[in-house]
């Protein structure tokens, strides 16, 4: 799925799904994806915006995948630290994780079980797990949903810092345009089912450092573009 590794640590991600469907409970065929293609430059941070997109991007080709599911999906019977360590590949098993835990504010919670954590801490644990494996690609499935805004904002900042440090190619799936504009350097707007890309847009740098005015004006511009693209798409 990904091309030959380019210079540096991160790898580009190229994704092609010709079609994907499943059978619903009443036996009808539901097409969830049709002709979806996207390419992410090495080390880039992209955001895909669509309600139905989640749950469809799961399989990496080669390269290591770090994934943060919308529900944290921790093992309830393992501590925070064990949950992170268990995901480590064999060649990575003794890696030092203290830094990562500190950055994510998990240092004092390592021996706790997931049932004792708030949603925010559980998400942080899931994010720690995704970074601990030393990923080439990072897939984030609405990782900030149902957190209160202050906590979500801090987590966004920490996540941007981590992706910059780890030189990882990231795809964030979200509904939140503002969040996407704040974090990503490329946006993919997706249609309803069957999912395909209706608009792809690169954002001017710097990623993450945009002021709220800039974010707001880019977001407005994007909304207008998406509306046009959707109309054009409907006519086709």
């Amino acid at each position: 799925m990904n091309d030959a590794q380019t210079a540096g640590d991160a790898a580009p991600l190229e994704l092609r799904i010709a079609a994907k469907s499943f059978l619903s409970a009443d036996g009808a065929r539901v097409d969830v994806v049709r002709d979806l293609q996207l390419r992410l430059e090495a080390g880039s941070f992209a955001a895909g915006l669509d309600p139905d997109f989640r749950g469809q991007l799961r399989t990496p080709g080669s390269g290591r995948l770090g994934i943060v599911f919308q529900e944290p999906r921790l093992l309830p019977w393992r501590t925070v630290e064990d949950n992170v360590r268990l995901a480590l590949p064999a060649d990575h098993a003794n890696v030092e994780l203290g830094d990562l835990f500190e950055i994510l504010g998990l240092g004092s919670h390592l021996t706790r079980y997931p049932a004792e954590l708030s949603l925010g801490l559980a998400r942080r644990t899931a994010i720690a797990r995704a970074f601990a494996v030393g990923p080439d690609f990072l897939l984030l499935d609405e990782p900030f949903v149902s957190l209160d805004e202050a906590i979500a904002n801090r987590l966004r900042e920490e996540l941007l810092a981590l992706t910059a440090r780890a030189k990882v190619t990231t795809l964030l799936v979200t509904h939140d345009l503002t969040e996407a504009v704040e974090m990503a350097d490329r946006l993919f707007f997706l249609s309803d089912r069957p999912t395909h890309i209706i608009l792809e847009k690169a954002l001017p740098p710097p990623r993450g450092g945009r002021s709220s005015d800039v974010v707001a004006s880019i977001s407005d511009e994007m909304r207008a573009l998406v509306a046009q693209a959707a109309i054009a798409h409907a006519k086709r």
Partner: protein
Amino acid sequence: MLQRTYSLIALIAIWAVVAALLQSRLLPGPLTIGAAILTDTRTGELPFQMACTLGRVAASFVIAMILGTIAGYAMGRSKTFDRYADPWLVVLLNMPALVIILFAYIWIGLDETAAILAVAVNKLPNVVVVMREGARALDPELDEMAKAYQFARFSRIRNLVLPQLAPYLAASSRSGLSIVWKIVLVVELIGRPNGVGFVLGSAFSLFDMAKILSYAICFIVLMLVIESLVVQPLERRANRWRRRPA
């Protein structure tokens, strides 16, 4: 705990009163039984017979749990396998314990293998039924997580599957232990030259109520001890991650 003790004391007291009123050889009082237990313990007869029975209970329990867990897991995970294996399971579930015991003794012979196998086969279908439910209840989302992070097979079983199956394992071992020891006694009664079941059989032919009661009580007490010293602590350990009210 205190209520349980009172209740037990009350039971023994009623027994003592009824025995004293009846003054019959058919219902010896608690003191007579206590004396009988002491005598047989001193001669070594009681510990030996209990050890024979306990060995059979342990062997058939372990066999039934291992085979039953594997089969139940496979049936819970694969619909095809379940469709093929389910009729066999229904047959086995409805086969009377006595019939299985007789088959085993006739086909294999009156030996230890037949005895243990007969008990294990009696217990097996219950384990399969419970473990199949457990395997069906495995969380597909955690499975997906393990696949994305490429958990090794052994790690997946140890960290994902077994903890989710733990309540089912606990349920089937607790119900299993009581089924197994009851059937072991029947197996011993029919075809073994030792064990608690054998002693009860010979005591029955002599109408020796004191012996029947003393061995039965000793074995029940032993099973209660195993349950509270082995099974319950294991269950608590498996459940320690659950959030407890402070």
